[in-house]
């Protein structure tokens, strides 16, 4: 191994005045999705005019410019499309053990979620069948989409 040469220059510093953001996110147009998770349901939206499907759900159809949407339930079973396990966790997730995030295809839509019942990512296979259901995450007091292989 060669000698490790880096560009790393340090110097005299002062602290900034801290700035904290805590947003109140207006999700009234997708309220049914957020409340649905707590009731065990996962929703997408479909445009009543042109049939376009949106997952995650959105209130407006950019395809035909309609706002005439209906809520449709995402199927309870799907297929694993890809996945990763996050070891280097970001601020806000420091309190979690490394977690597996996956993309699952369910019927005509795809959803992102956490794989809840497998810890060893090398045991997972793309194409595997999974059950999809919302799960409560106590640390964040929120519901997310969970996958069960």
């Amino acid at each position, binding site marked *: *191994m*060669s*000698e*490790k*040469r*880096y*560009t*790393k*220059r*340090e*110097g005299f*510093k002062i602290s*900034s005045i801290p*700035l904290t953001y805590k947003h109140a*996110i207006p*999700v009234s147009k997708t309220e049914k999705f957020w409340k649905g998770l707590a009731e065990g349901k996962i929703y997408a939206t479909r445009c009543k005019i042109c049939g376009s499907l949106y*997952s*995650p759900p959105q209130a407006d159809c950019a395809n035909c410019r309609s706002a005439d949407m209906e809520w449709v339930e995402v199927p309870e079973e799907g297929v694993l*499309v*890809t*996945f*990763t*396990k*996050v*070891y*280097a*966790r*970001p*601020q*806000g*997730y*420091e309190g*979690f053990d490394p*977690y597996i*995030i996956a*993309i699952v295809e369910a019927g005509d*839509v*795809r*959803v*992102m*979620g*956490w794989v809840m019942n497998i810890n060893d*990512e*090398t045991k997972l*296979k*793309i194409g595997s069948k999974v059950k999809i259901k919302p799960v409560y995450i106590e640390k964040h007091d*929120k519901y*997310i*989409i969970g996958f069960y292989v």
Partner: protein
Amino acid sequence: MRRVAVVGVGMSAFGVRNDVTIQELVWEAVREALDDSGLEQKDIELSVVGTVNTRGYELMPAVVVNEYSGLTGRGPLRVEAACATGSAALWTAYSAVASGQVDVAIAIGVEKMNEVDTATSLAVGGRAGNYLWEFHMYGTTFPAYYAFYATAHMQKFGTTEEQMAMVAVKNHKYASRNPKAHFQFEVTLEEVLKSRPIAWPLKLLDCSPISDGAAATVLASEDVARKITDTPVWIEAIGYSSDTSNFTRRPHYLGLEATRKAAEMAYRRSGVEPRQVEVAEVHDCFTIAEIMAYEDLGWVEKGKGGIFIAEGQSELGGKVSVNLSGGLKAKGHPLGATGLAQIYELVKQLREERERGRQAPLRNYIALSHNVGGTGHYAYVTILRR
């Protein structure tokens, strides 16, 4: 549209630059670019400042860096396209010159990433998708997004962790010969494979570092360029595209559609064929990204990128010499600066001014830069010719 030439390039040393503020860092690049062009600030009619700057304390820095560089009154326009911000700045300055609105413009790219800690940096990078539907719910990170592609590419095409590691070994090798690189040391295949997991299957040495840096490019119309330099480098075309912010809405995870479309536009507009490109800087923020780039830029068929690196086709003097600067992987990846640092490298390559051991052999003098924003959220492909 008028022809546009690069007439001056500058770049700061990349790395942890906790010795300077954002404006001081920018000046290192602007001063070199002005010196290189032989022009003065009064000759510059428009300044375009590219920075993502979601980690900085100076939230609206364009006017700050412009003033420090003596460019007050000449712009600035601020642009942002995630990690492709430098190329978005280049496109904006290029368009202003090509359209005839100005004769001389400067594109500046800068990022300060080390004034906050790594966890904060990961949280900012993980929001470079769609915060509400992804980071908020699942704690996505930037490495995780590319890991989704790596997992899918490995399973579909048999791409291996060893092949990905070869990209790191190659790019560290060239960075060790680049005095402006963040990492100026070589790594072995074994070191890459044994480095700690960041987002499986990506390991620490598959990832580009968190770097500070600035780069600047002076552009001029053909009339001006012919008067001031004997070595203009022509921008033949800039192609651009984008993809969905919601990762779940991508059609597949085997390559970047935005890269494919941007490349198609750049090749079509320039009349250059993929096989004519001799030297390239591609967006290797993670090793899998370089492997997909070989495919999406048309140098090898889809799925064969792993074989391309294993056969040495992207080495100096191979089919196309890729990332002789060390790439984002080892030269460093200060988001807003990256696209213009690629131009800096390629202009130096085309002028045959690089150090021994990393100057590409040239016959056609055609170069390509490939700059991706986010995980294929944006892509720019620029074709340069001397």
